[in-house]
């Protein structure tokens, strides 16, 4: 992916798609958190997101493109970077000069990708099946109530699934620890006064968002 683009262009596009995904994560975690505060509000917002044509046919394809682009470009860059050093060092101390998170974005990224696949099987594919294959856009279950909260709550009754989700969110956190501030650097934003603030914000974001997702999963698991 990105053949014909220069290294700087690829880096900037990687950052821009990263920014887009940061906004998406914030939105996703906020809506999910409503399930803890008010099941009815969660149902209403979920129904809006699941049936609004702008969200479904404009934002969702853009999101899908953003996700695929970020993953594809990340893997493509990793392959190219590996080729740039065909003979590896016999002795190397990368930990002396760079954080584990910054050096292993491909590992944390692939773990998040694997999580996506599980997450799609759990939620997205059944949702697409209900809405676009069965043609049921009502968002209602057999009892005539909104089904969204019920489905979410049901999925998190499985301890193994909750464990995998929690582990995946830890990988997401590690990915964000570097990714957030790195995206600013890639687009050329670096300032003696503001960059330390960006780094702090990035660390807060990287802890709070995954922690919120973990909390939601555990909340539903523990409130069976």
């Amino acid at each position, binding site marked *: 992916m990105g053949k014909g683009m*220069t*290294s*700087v*262009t*690829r*880096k*900037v596009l990687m950052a821009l798609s990263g920014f887009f995904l940061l906004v998406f994560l914030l939105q996703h975690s906020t809506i999910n958190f409503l399930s803890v505060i008010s099941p009815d509000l969660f149902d209403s917002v979920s129904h809006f997101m699941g049936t609004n044509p702008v969200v479904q046919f404009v934002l969702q394809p853009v999101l899908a493109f953003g996700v695929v682009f970020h993953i594809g470009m990340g893997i493509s*860059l990793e392959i*190219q*970077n590996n*080729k*740039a*050093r*065909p*003979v*590896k*060092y*016999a*002795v*190397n*101390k*990368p930990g*002396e*000069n*760079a*954080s584990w998170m*910054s*050096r292993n*974005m491909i590992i944390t990224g692939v773990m998040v990708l694997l999580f996506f696949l599980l997450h799609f099987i759990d939620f997205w594919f059944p949702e697409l099946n209900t809405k676009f294959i069965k043609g049921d856009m009502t968002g209602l279950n057999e009892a005539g109530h909104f089904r969204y909260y019920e489905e979410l709550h049901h999925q998190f009754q499985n301890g193994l699934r909750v464990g995998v989700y929690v582990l995946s969110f830890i990988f997401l956190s590690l990915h964000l620890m*570097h990714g957030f*501030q*790195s995206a600013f*650097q*890639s*687009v*050329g*934003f*670096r300032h003696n006064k503001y960059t330390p603030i960006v780094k702090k914000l990035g660390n807060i974001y990287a802890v709070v968002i995954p922690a919120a997702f973990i909390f939601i999963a555990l909340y539903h698991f523990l409130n069976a």
Partner: protein
Amino acid sequence: MNLTLKIWRQNGASDKGKLVSYKVADISEHMSFLEMLDVLNEQLVNSGEEPVAFDHDCREGICGMCSLHINGEAHGPDRGVTTCQLHMRMFKDGDTITIEPFRAKAFPVVKDLVVDRSALDRIQQAGGYISVNTSGNTQDANAIPIPKADADEAMDAATCIGCGACVASCKNASAMLFVSAKVSQYALLPQGRVEAKDRVLNMVSQMDKEGFGNCTNTGACEVECPKGISITNIARMNREYLSASIKND
């Protein structure tokens, strides 16, 4: 001190190469690392063996010729110094020291620890210069007012000696710290603005042609840089590149 050296020996670019162990004795802690290698080479020559080839020139930390990946770090365990300024006091008696060449596809091994870093020269040739009228009417550079902060930052960037430690340290073998320093030292000064657009586009293009990897902002380069070049320069180069791409026809 007595040391065991594991040194990369490779007889030319097509040779596979391997680490070979040597013992050196009575090394003074006041010696530089290269002087220690001189002792080893004397020992090898006296015993009829091929001396270890390694790059060096000024031995004052300003020419950028010496390299070496020592115990897993470019220019060794000390900070802000080149290999020629690395002293044996950084090591302990009985240590085993592994010495490898800077490794990157764009830095092919010439022999043993000597690598060809002319890729950096070609990047410099692609735009690391300003065009000046030398007909005798050259304007005195000091006649152009330059903010002190800009002059300082340009000078900081210009202290890059092009040793390639940034490439050697980067997990992706990226040369962006070097290129960004060369872009910055001109971008910050009025004399450099005239060719700023072409400079950054051409230098980045040449960098990619040479087969260096992509920068992923790990920051390893600035930690290992003997001249303390900051990755602030990489952010500036990214801005310069974006601006030049938009203005480019």
